[in-house]
């Protein structure tokens, strides 16, 4: 209870500080007061612009999230069932994760279309996090459990489906939670390479035209989209740990 109050106080102090810094212009005109940003964000005339950008980015992020999760799950499962492939797939995942996102943009632009590049860049970010969390989760079943399954005559597939996969669920859900902000970053960077609309486009345009308040609005939209789903996934994670942890 005391912790919650202190936490709320901390956030309130931060928001108040933001407003004061903006009003007094200590950091110059690049730091607008929170109230100005909120006024712009809720402005009727801006609403269609914001909704279009947010919609496009969320759509790319969701697509990339699905693709990345699927690919991560598949590679982690294959590497788990065929141990000979494990070392190579670890390295492949590490290297894919190390390719700069700004280089992925031009590659996907050639491989796919302008519209699907954000989702593709986003899926690479998600893939790595899901792959790592599922790989480590699949190894969580204890030797005692494995012995029990062996004694009861379970084959490799049964052991995987009934023991190792459920044991990996909490780890997968943690990965899914961490992957959401990463997916959003991927979509925003992907949009810089010629996507027709999105928050990434809004950020770049506002930055280049010195529309400071609009830039902050776009950043707040990205932050809001990140936090909202991150919060939802945190709840899902708690449920998964309660059931399978």
């Amino acid at each position, binding site marked *: 209870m005391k912790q919650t109050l202190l*936490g709320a*106080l901390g956030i309130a102090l931060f928001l108040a500080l933001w407003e004061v810094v903006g009003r007094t212009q200590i950091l110059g005109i690049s730091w607008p007061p929170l109230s100005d940003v909120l006024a712009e964000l809720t402005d009727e005339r801006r609403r269609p612009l914001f909704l279009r950008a947010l919609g496009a980015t969320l759509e790319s992020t969701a697509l990339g999230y699905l693709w990345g999760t699927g690919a991560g799950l598949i590679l982690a499962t294959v590497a788990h069932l065929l141990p*000979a492939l494990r070392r190579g797939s670890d390295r*492949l995942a590490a290297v894919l994760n*190390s390719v*700069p*996102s700004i280089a992925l943009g031009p590659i996907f632009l050639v491989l796919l279309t302008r519209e699907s590049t954000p989702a593709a860049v986003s899926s690479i970010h998600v893939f790595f996090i899901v792959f790592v969390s599922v790989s480590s989760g699949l190894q969580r079943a204890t030797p005692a459990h494995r012995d029990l399954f062996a004694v009861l005559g379970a084959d490799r597939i049964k052991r995987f489906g009934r023991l190792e996969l459920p044991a990996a669920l909490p780890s997968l859900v943690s990965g899914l939670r961490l992957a959401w*902000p990463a997916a959003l970053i991927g979509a925003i960077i992907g949009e810089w390479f010629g996507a027709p609309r999105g928050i990434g486009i809004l950020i770049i345009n*506002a930055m280049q035209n010195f529309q400071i308040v609009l830039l902050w609005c776009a950043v707040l939209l990205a*932050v809001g989209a990140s936090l909202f789903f991150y919060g939802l996934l945190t709840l899902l994670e708690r449920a998964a740990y309660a059931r399978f942890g």
Partner: protein
Amino acid sequence: MRPLLVRLVEDYWGILLLLFAWQAWVVVNSFNPIVMPTPTAVLGDLVSHPGVYLGNVGITLSIAVFGLVAGMLVGTGLAVAAWFSPIASGLLNPLTVLFSSVPVVALIPVIARLLGYDTSTVLAIVVIITFFPSFVFASSGLRQPPPGAEDLFRVLGASRLDLLRRLALPAAMPNLAIAFKLAAAHAILAAMVAEFLMGTTGLGYLFAKTKSDFQTEQAFGASLVATVISASAFLAAGWVEKKVRERYS
């Protein structure tokens, strides 16, 4: 000991497959090198113009390393401060959880507007990006000493400082190693995105400039170098994490 060739295939089949697919894809579609060069052409450019890359690699790498160290020091330092004061940690914790789930890349333009478009801003961005994981992981590590150990220290009359030095900090080491692993690979990539957006110096700048000059081979060369550095940093940090875990837990 496995034979070298078997080891090579076992460890690198994925990467070899990827490079092969890239080469085949470009050759089959006969792309113009301006649109998409082959990996062999990119490698060729790397070998024939090492000077162009070396200078920029030096800049980006030193920013990444310096930013990584500074960010981890600040993060751990604040976590220790919060460990001493329950009020400070109560105030800071939800804020840092909020911030660590914020897409930091979206903040780069704002930070650039605030601090100006130069190299020190790139450094600030790397520091901020590495700060959050180290603060979050260090805080939770400091609070997870082995059960009962804290009581033992109290009974033996240890001061708060002893408790920190001999119990909490060692207990936090494995967590700090995880934060290091997460941040090490990202530091150089974050530096590159910031350089790309602001057009200052370094690998990100080299990428942006050569890309717009249609020197696509060099742009991909810059990315390839960044990939190799970042992947090596990740694998090396993973090794460090394993050693730390063996030593401290």
